[in-house]
């Protein structure tokens, strides 16, 4: 359980990080909270020769509001997300999901950036970012670029992030005032990754659903944005038959592994159950 040896760097600016990453190529990794990376290094599933610590890098922490948009710095921890007033008022689903991640100690360290950048299908924030329609803000040797969370994930641990690039933050439009939301996660115990989880955000007007967005965690190689299931809700009163149809559409895009969390068929069904519960709760919460 001893990680391989590496050289440790602790730069102060995004520019220095990018230059270290560019110099050392795929031998370098950034370390944020370290609560996914260090366990992987102990198992020697990761053995970076250069570790670039982001803790002193200026400008990567905090939640800020700019008109209708919210930007969250990559180094903002899960504990800070839970405590954020701006998020509690404008986008409470983030707090709801963050409270279901790991345990208090892990949440003091784990960052939003590490959670979404990593490409671990077990992580909870990627599906949530897809549900919110968030944009990832990336910076590399050629400057900055933006990638839609729904386009970022290619396969487990394979993402759009290129060598030399850093994720500096995420940005999304505030969900409309009065929206309904829910993050429902089935797990075996505190601190466990999801057997299946679903994020739902929707809005209602005069008893009819005017927008809906559904995404799923840990039932495929990547987080899954459930486009067809989302579309099925729009223009309906979210009656029982519509919800049945959306659940079936959500289940149909899952491709879970059979593992300690259960056989694939079970996890697909649980993705459906989580989707159903999340839609029902979001409907109740919508104003």
């Amino acid at each position, binding site marked *: 359980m001893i990680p391989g040896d590496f050289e*440790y760097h602790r730069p102060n600016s995004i520019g220095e990080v990018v230059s270290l990453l560019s110099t050392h190529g795929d031998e370098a990794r950034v370390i944020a909270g370290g609560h996914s990376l260090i366990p992987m290094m102990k198992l020697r599933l990761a053995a970076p020769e250069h570790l670039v610590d982001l803790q002193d890098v200026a400008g990567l922490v905090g939640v800020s509001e700019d008109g209708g948009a919210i930007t969250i710095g990559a180094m903002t921890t899960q504990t800070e997300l839970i405590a954020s007033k701006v998020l509690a008022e404008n986008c409470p689903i983030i707090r709801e999901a963050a409270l279901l991640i790991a345990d208090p100690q892990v949440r003091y360290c784990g960052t939003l950036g590490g959670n979404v950048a990593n490409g671990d299908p077990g992580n909870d924030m990627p599906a949530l970012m897809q549900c919110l329609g968030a944009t990832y803000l990336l910076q590399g040797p050629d400057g900055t670029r933006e990638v839609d969370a729904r386009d970022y994930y290619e396969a487990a641990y394979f993402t759009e992030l290129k060598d030399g690039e850093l994720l500096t933050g995420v940005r999304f439009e505030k969900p409309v005032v009065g929206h309904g939301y829910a993050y429902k996660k089935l797990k075996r115990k505190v601190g466990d990754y999801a057997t299946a989880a679903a994020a739902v955000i929707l809005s209602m007007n005069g008893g009819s659903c005017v927008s809906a967005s559904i995404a799923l965690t840990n039932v495929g190689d990547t987080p899954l944005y459930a486009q067809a299931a989302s579309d099925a809700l729009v223009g309906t009163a979210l009656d029982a038959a519509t919800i049945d149809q959306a659940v079936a559409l959500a289940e149909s895009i899952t491709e879970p592994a059979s593992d300690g969390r259960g056989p694939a068929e079970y996890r697909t069904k649980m993705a459906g159950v989580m989707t159903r519960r999340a839609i029902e709760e979001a409907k109740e919460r919508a104003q």
Partner: protein
Amino acid sequence: MNKKHVKMTVNGKTVEGDVEARTLLIHFLREDLGLTGPHIGCETSHCGACTVDLDGRSVKSCTLFAVQAENADITTVEGMAAADGTLHAIQEGFMQEHGLQCGFCTPGMIMRTHRLLQENPNPTDEEIRWGISGNLCRCTGYQNIVKAVRYAANKLNDTTREAAE
């Protein structure tokens, strides 16, 4: 081998040492500083026996490199009792309420409780259970640990009230 010089504050004292970059904080504390209060239970970030207080956060010291703690302010269970040996209210609570059996989880439980009670001085039993959910105990069944935390909360609140009067 890449040795790095590290300097940090542990239990109020400045400490320094030369470590390999890959040295985990728990190993630096136990082997270099001789602070064997923080325990290694799982070494896989699950059990919380290695929990220490670091810059106002409870962290699992098996999941942090010593070099990351450069300049940090750390408290381990060794830093809880007063200089004359008087136990901290939390330690007293674990003793009075029989909050331990083998004691292996106790240093982590105490350090996690320390931070929990700073953030929430008067937690409900439910909040205590959630607050210590990153700490596993194989012996007690948690019931007496919850009582110990409550004992400590009451005692600390009484002390704060007396000080205010």
